[in-house]
């Protein structure tokens, strides 16, 4: 049964991809990417990757679509030109694809427990989680503790990307058509307040999305979840609020200065936990010394750094959304 489902999903995924690349209407392409993300999230779930599926669904289908639409509003929805060297590109792509497909016959058998990828550190992570950290979700344990350096690096990449977007948008556009364009549609910064159904439904949804975000954040040790997913869900709730009630009100609820603080604060919290480990006489990002019992120390460390991750991710995604939304189109 799940085999049929997998094949069906994968086939739909390929069809969606072709549609994204073929369509000239970028709005359609962006909405199709949302569908693409949901499909691939379902496939990840079938492949036992619950955490990844949750992340992809929150980020790919939610935030990415909004960001792309925000960019489209500034750059135009129609793709004008055709393709460059269409036949040559197609030939190159076809050759590489056939090489890749030829190579798949040498790949380890799908689901083989003896495949090389399962031999190295992974069994140790599964056993070590029971012994050293004692939380059920191995993904969270590896992410937060065993590979804490990686995750710290990723958080700083997210932070840097957020700073980069704000920096790019600090420059003022050079050319302006006319500043006194007649306002069409709802007044600027008002959001969808004039539309009854989105407003009522959205207002009811937002508290539950926030609550779910908190659940995902603090239940990440026991089930699928953690800072990355929770940050994205939180950002989705605030973005929904901004879409419904307008930029101005969203910025009044969460001012830009607070958002900048969140961006930096989360990354700092993460680093501070690492430094605390050093000050207590161990290595950077070794949480064992945070409490008398090393296992409890590990758990405290993971909760703290996951909070840091969530804060930074939410701060960056909301700031980036505001940066796109506040930009006037030229």
């Amino acid at each position, binding site marked *: 049964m799940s*085999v049929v489902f997998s094949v069906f999903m994968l086939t739909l995924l*390929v069809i969606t*991809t072709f549609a994204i*690349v073929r369509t000239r209407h970028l709005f359609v*392409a962006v909405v199709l*990417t949302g569908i*693409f*993300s949901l499909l691939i999230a379902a*496939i*990840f779930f079938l*492949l*036992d*990757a619950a955490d*990844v599926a949750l992340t992809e669904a929150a*980020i*790919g289908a939610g935030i*990415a679509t909004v960001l*792309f639409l925000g*960019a*489209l509003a500034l*750059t*135009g929805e129609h793709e*004008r030109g055709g*393709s*460059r060297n269409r036949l040559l*590109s197609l030939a190159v*792509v076809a050759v590489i*694809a056939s090489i*890749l*497909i030829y190579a*798949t016959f040498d790949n380890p058998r*799908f*689901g*083989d*427990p003896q495949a090389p*990828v399962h031999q190295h*550190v*992974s069994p140790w*992570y*599964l056993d070590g989680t029971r012994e050293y950290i004692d939380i*059920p*979700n*191995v993904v969270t344990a*590896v*992410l937060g503790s065993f590979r804490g350096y*990686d995750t710290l690096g*990723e958080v700083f*990449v*997210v932070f840097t990307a957020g700073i*980069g977007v704000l920096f*790019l*948008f600090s420059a003022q556009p050079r*050319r302006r058509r006319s500043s006194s364009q007649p306002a069409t549609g709802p007044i600027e910064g008002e959001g969808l307040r004039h539309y009854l159904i989105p407003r009522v439904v959205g207002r009811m949804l937002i508290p539950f999305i926030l609550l779910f975000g908190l659940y995902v954040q603090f239940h990440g040790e026991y089930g699928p979840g953690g800072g*990355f997913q929770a940050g*994205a869900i939180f950002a989705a709730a605030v973005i929904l609020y901004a879409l419904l009630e307008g930029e101005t009100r969203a910025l009044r609820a969460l001012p830009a200065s607070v958002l900048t603080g969140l961006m930096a604060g989360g990354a700092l919290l993460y680093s501070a936990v690492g430094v605390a480990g050093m000050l207590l006489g161990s290595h950077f990002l070794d949480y064992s010394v945070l409490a008398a019992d090393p296992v409890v120390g590990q758990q405290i460390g993971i909760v703290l750094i996951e909070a840091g991750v969530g804060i930074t*991710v939410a701060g960056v995604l909301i700031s*980036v959304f505001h940066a*796109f939304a506040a*930009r006037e189109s*030229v």
Partner: protein
Amino acid sequence: MELLGLYHYWVFAILLMTGFYAVIAKYNLIKKLLGLSIFQSAVFLLYITMGKIEGGTAPILQAYGEGQLFSNPLPQVLILTAIVVGISTMALGLGVVVRIKEEYGTIEEHEIREIDRQ
């Protein structure tokens, strides 16, 4: 099972190359970024496919007795963070595209080159 695995790998190859085609052949910069994100998702799919173990389940230890097989958590960790980093870098890319639109008035690559040449 064998065929299903091969199908996963083939879909990976097709997605990767479709994304790559959009990056090299299309003029529109937003389309290129969409292609890049498809390319990226294809890599994610490959990693997660590799991590699957037959008869395994999601690597959450609760409620399972001894002898339960778990799929490999490591690729999942790598991809989980990669997705979030991916959206952040994508946002940066979109920011650059918006700035290009503001400076050049177009986001079609050949038109930008035309303007540069003048």
